[in-house]
């Protein structure tokens, strides 16, 4: 909301400076967003006089002038080349010296030569000073202004424009008067109420007003007041009014329209003026009817909906109540008899109508936040007085349909609440005085509770906390002193849950593996969501109003974002990337459907030991087992128990080069593998890309232990011994099955089994492979005899043969 300083000083009688006012506004919660002070902008521009103007030797349209101007603190005569047609000897105008910045274009003047003739400074037009559109020539002033007078003074451009942000709870401050009331309460002057007394009606208005609402919908418009003023002479509004409106960005139109705009901004009281000759029969407020249309003042035609509150005459809809009037019934320069409307419309219904029609107007803005219903008739009187002053005419009696809705609210207020809530200790009478200055009624016995009645213009005030806010914001929040929040424990207790710790560990563990953490959008395109099990399959995760079609669905997996990111980095020349994200993904719309995943990808040659070429050996293409290694490192960091690996990852993985980590037959802890070539093709990203997804929440919580002590460590003094075995098995045999069989052959003696060679093809023949293992035997009581070693070896061979159907390699 914008207003000028002189406008503010109409209702506010104050000696305060602009700076004081600006500071106080912000500290009252009316945050100043900007101050445009033309006097500051024009500070280096002053009145100067052209003493002589002769034609430029080399240019027909230019003149070489001798200009008398104030330079520093001395009057000097400068040579200035000027192109204005009215540049002539004896002209008094506005001069910009070298060093000045021209407001209209930001140009900084410096001494120059124009077609070979020296020129120092510039004589200015109104447009160059951004004071009007006038650019036919340079400014001409009466010669009563002395050379050196400030331009702002000579031109009357000394009214700063203040812009403040009004929070939605303060509809009363959508008028300058309300702002003045707050400033006065804060001690920055005295509030002038203005003349709100009734203007005597001279006749009965031939146009009546009706409220036509079915039972239950009367709240749409509880009161509608109006009067006819006949014999007005519409025309341009006076200069002061045009100045106020144009200073805040409104185009002056004609006196009648300007008056309604002014009262909307000055008193937060939207009004509407009709050309009475265009009203057929009576005016009424009612709900809209299907099929009706309105050609509104914005030049567009709208369909009327049954939920809208409209103003209509006997035949047509003339306007959307509280939103916008119609074009046909509006006032114009030809208007002689004017009907003035002042009504109160339901904020919620007005907001809905505004949203449905998409119309943004000053009236809607005010009505939907809640204007003062008690000001309906006083506002009409104020408008009548202004119209008669500026346009003449004779008013009818006021007609009022309905009545002011009851806004009476009395709050039992304990003044001690101020200290309890804010720590600020205020005297009882200070609280009382602040409330009274803001227009609250305060009664109550000394020492007891106050009975505080809320003024009709404050729909935001409901309870004691609201009153505390009013008191402290006017008193000033600077007085609030810091008080230490008591510590709960001398040494702070840990706060993270198991899952929260896992989220944190996931990130650190993966970064330690050389992966780079990304944060991608929570939404992806429908096509991408479909690639990873979402999209059409989960319509509940589709946004109704996405910011773009690329961001229409909640992501079912973090992979879409990561693969797309790898593609973008590749396009920038970084093809070999190892990226991860640890964050939320969405299986369905419920809170439980949102799960945390730690997901990573490696692309190109971004293998765990390094990417690309290196003198010690170049990295090959990434492999599925690189992703498995990442996932296992992460799972180990998370304290996951031993997991089974099976070949059944989801469809976005390569069917033969991917696997799942499982705990028991059903609980999936994660996946790893090569991304399916079809997925990469669909996303237009070249591979190979390997990936893993780990779901830390699926790992069971560790058992709560009574003690932090670890199990006692038992060490054997006896040396372990190692034996190698090689088996020939079918290619389809999982190495893991062989290792487990060997390990279980003698659980007491065998402490470790490691696979040290895998050989497939060649001499093995089709469909066979050789797996070689090293078995570690750890005796615990005595050195093993040859016989005992032999027995264990036989047991290992027998177990492996039984489990895999293989044979010992001869």
């Amino acid at each position, binding site marked *: 909301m914008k207003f000028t300083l002189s406008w503010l000083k109409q209702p506010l009688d104050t000696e305060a400076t602009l700076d004081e006012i600006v500071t106080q506004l912000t500290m009252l919660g009316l945050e100043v967003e900007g101050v445009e002070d033309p006097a500051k902008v024009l500070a280096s521009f002053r009145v100067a006089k052209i003493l002589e103007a002769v034609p430029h030797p080399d240019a027909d349209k230019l003149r070489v002038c001798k200009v008398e101007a104030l330079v520093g603190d001395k009057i000097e005569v400068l040579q200035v080349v000027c192109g204005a047609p009215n540049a002539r000897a004896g002209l008094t105008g506005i001069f910009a010296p070298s060093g000045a910045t021209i407001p209209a274009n930001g140009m900084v003047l410096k001494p120059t030569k124009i077609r070979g003739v020296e020129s120092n400074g510039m004589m200015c037009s109104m447009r160059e000073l951004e004071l009007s559109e006038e650019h036919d020539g340079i400014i001409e002033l009466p010669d009563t202004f002395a050379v050196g007078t400030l331009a702002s003074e000579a031109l009357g451009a000394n009214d700063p424009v203040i812009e403040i942000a009004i929070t939605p709870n303060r509809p009363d401050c959508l008028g300058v008067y309300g702002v003045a009331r707050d400033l006065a309460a804060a001690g920055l002057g005295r509030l002038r109420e203005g003349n709100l007394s009734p203007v005597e009606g001279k006749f009965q208005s031939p146009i009546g007003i009706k409220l036509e609402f079915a039972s239950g919908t009367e709240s749409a418009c509880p009161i509608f007041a109006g009067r006819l003023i006949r014999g007005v002479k519409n025309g341009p509004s006076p200069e002061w009014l045009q100045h106020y409106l144009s200073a805040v960005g409104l185009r002056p139109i004609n006196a009648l329209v300007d008056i309604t705009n002014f009262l909307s901004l000055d008193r937060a009281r939207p009004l509407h003026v009709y050309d009475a000759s265009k009203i057929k029969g009576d005016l009424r407020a009612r709900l809209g009817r299907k099929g009706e249309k309105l050609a509104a003042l914005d030049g567009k035609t709208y369909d009327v909906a049954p939920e809208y509150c409209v103003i209509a005459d006997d035949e047509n809809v003339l306007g959307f109540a509280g939103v916008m009037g119609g074009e046909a019934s509006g006032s114009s320069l030809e208007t002689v008899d004017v009907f003035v409307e002042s009504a109160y419309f339901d904020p919620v219904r007005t907001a809905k109508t505004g949203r449905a029609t998409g119309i943004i107007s000053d009236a809607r803005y005010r009505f939907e936040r809640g204007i003062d219903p008690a000001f309906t008739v006083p506002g009409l009187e104020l408008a009548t007085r202004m119209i008669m002053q500026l346009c003449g005419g004779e008013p009818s009696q006021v007609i009022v349909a309905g009545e002011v809705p009851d806004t009476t609210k009395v709050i039992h207020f304990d003044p001690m609440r101020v200290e309890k*809530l804010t720590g600020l200790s205020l005297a009882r009478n200070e609280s009382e005085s602040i409330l009274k200055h803001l227009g609250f009624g305060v009664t109550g016995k000394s020492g007891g509770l106050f009975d505080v009645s809320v003024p009709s213009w404050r729909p935001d005030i409901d309870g004691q906390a609201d009153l505390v*806010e009013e008191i402290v914001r006017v008193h000033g929040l600077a007085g609030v*002193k810091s008080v230490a929040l008591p510590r709960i424990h001398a040494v702070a207790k840990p706060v993270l849950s198991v899952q929260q710790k896992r989220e944190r560990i996931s990130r650190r563990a993966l*970064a*330690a*593996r*050389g992966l780079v*953490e990304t944060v991608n959008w929570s939404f992806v395109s429908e096509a991408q969501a479909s690639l990873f099990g979402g999209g059409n399959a989960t319509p509940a*995760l589709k946004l109704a109003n996405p910011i773009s079609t690329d961001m229409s669905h909640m992501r079912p997996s973090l992979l879409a974002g990561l693969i797309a990111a790898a593609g973008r*980095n590749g396009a920038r020349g970084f093809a070999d990337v190892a990226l991860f994200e640890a964050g939320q993904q969405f299986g369905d719309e419920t809170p439980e459907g949102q799960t945390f995943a730690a997901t990573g990808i490696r692309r190109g040659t971004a293998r765990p030991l390094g990417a690309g070429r290196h003198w010690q050996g170049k990295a090959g293409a990434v492999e599925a087992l690189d992703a498995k290694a990442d996932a296992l490192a992460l799972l180990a960091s998370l304290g996951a128990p031993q997991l089974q690996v099976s070949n059944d990852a989801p469809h976005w993985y390569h069917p033969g080069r991917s696997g799942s980590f499982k705990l028991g037959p059903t609980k999936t802890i994660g996946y790893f593998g090569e991304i399916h070539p079809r997925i990469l093709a669909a996303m237009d990203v070249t591979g190979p890309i390997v990936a893993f997804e780990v779901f830390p929440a699926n790992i069971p919580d560790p058992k709560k232990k009574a003690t932090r002590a670890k199990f006692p460590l038992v060490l054997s003094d006896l040396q372990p011994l190692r034996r190698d075995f090689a088996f020939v098995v079918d290619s389809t045999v999982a190495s893991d099955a062989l290792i487990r069989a060997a390990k279980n052959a003698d659980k007491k003696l065998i402490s470790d089994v490691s696979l040290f060679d895998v050989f497939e093809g060649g001499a093995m023949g089709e469909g066979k492979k050789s797996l070689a293992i090293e078995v570690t035997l750890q005796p615990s009581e005595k050195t093993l005899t040859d016989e005992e070693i032999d027995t264990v070896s036989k047991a290992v061979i027998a177990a492996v043969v039984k489990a895999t159907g293989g044979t010992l390699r001869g």
Partner: protein
Amino acid sequence: MADIQDLSKLEADIVAAIVAANDEATLDAVRVAALGKKGSVSDLMKSLGGMSAEERQTAGPALNGLKDRLTEALAARKSALTEAALEARLAHEKIDVTLPVRESAIEAGRIHPLSQVLDEVISIFADMGFAYEQGPDIESDHYNFTALNFPEAHPAREMHDTFYFEPRADGSRLLLRTHTSPVQVRTMEKGKPPFRFICPGRTYRSDSDQTHTPQFHQIEGLVIDETTHMGHLKWVLEEFLRAFFEVEGVELRMRPSFFPFTEPSMEVDVRCARLGNEIRIGEGDDWLEILGCGMVHPNVLKAAGLDPEKYQGFAFGMGLDRIAMLKYGIPDLRAFFESDLRWLRHYGFSALDVPSLAGGLSS
């Protein structure tokens, strides 16, 4: 028995041979020739047996002395030869110490600035006794608005530019939370006062320009008990900002403002200096708006099942992305979500940069 002269000559000859031996094999041959089973000195030693006791008294010590001296000389020569051989070998063993090695994983990996700053914030608030609560991104109208005292159709709802899902069968619509405040209500509902927690998380608004992205991150804090007031709020914010920005002190300015879920509501500015594009917190003559806060609105307490006549407290909220940008001089919010490797490597953190109050938040 040879006489003393003969022994001296023998010794001199053997010593000369030891000195002359230039490799271990030659030296060993000298040893065998003198002290081996059939060596010259061994032969003489054997002759001791055939001597008279008197002769033995002189010859014994002489021969033993000879043997000891030769053993010592052999050992000394052997050690000299080993040393020389090692020196010779080392002289040939040379590498180009300037050859590059592969970057280690711990150097290559990065933590995103958002995760880093989240860890910093959690460690500060954990010390002040704030628990860490989370809630879902997909919310109901109830938790995002109604329970937070946003009246239906009120313009305050429109200020939030909400992302909605399609209406469900019953007409209700889920939405993406526009702030982390729903977690306040969810947490209060499932627990009992006193409450002291933060709830950081991802939030969404349908807004996209230079300084707005459709997703961003907030951190919300809440304290509810029977006595906590605005002075405590100011202290918590001062202490947090001082610790987070790692400065000696901060100065705050509270301005009245409006949020439906707090009353009174404030916006908080922190004193700062603007040096070109850089903003320094804790010095200078300028103010920077940094967060919103207030005393929890009685209607919110009621919605969470608490008696507003008995319980009171404060809530505050700020942008996690924003304080990350301020602290680490990151110019553009949009870059947070672009996953540009160059940006991540520059603004990201090492896995080992774990923020702690003992070691300092940043290294």
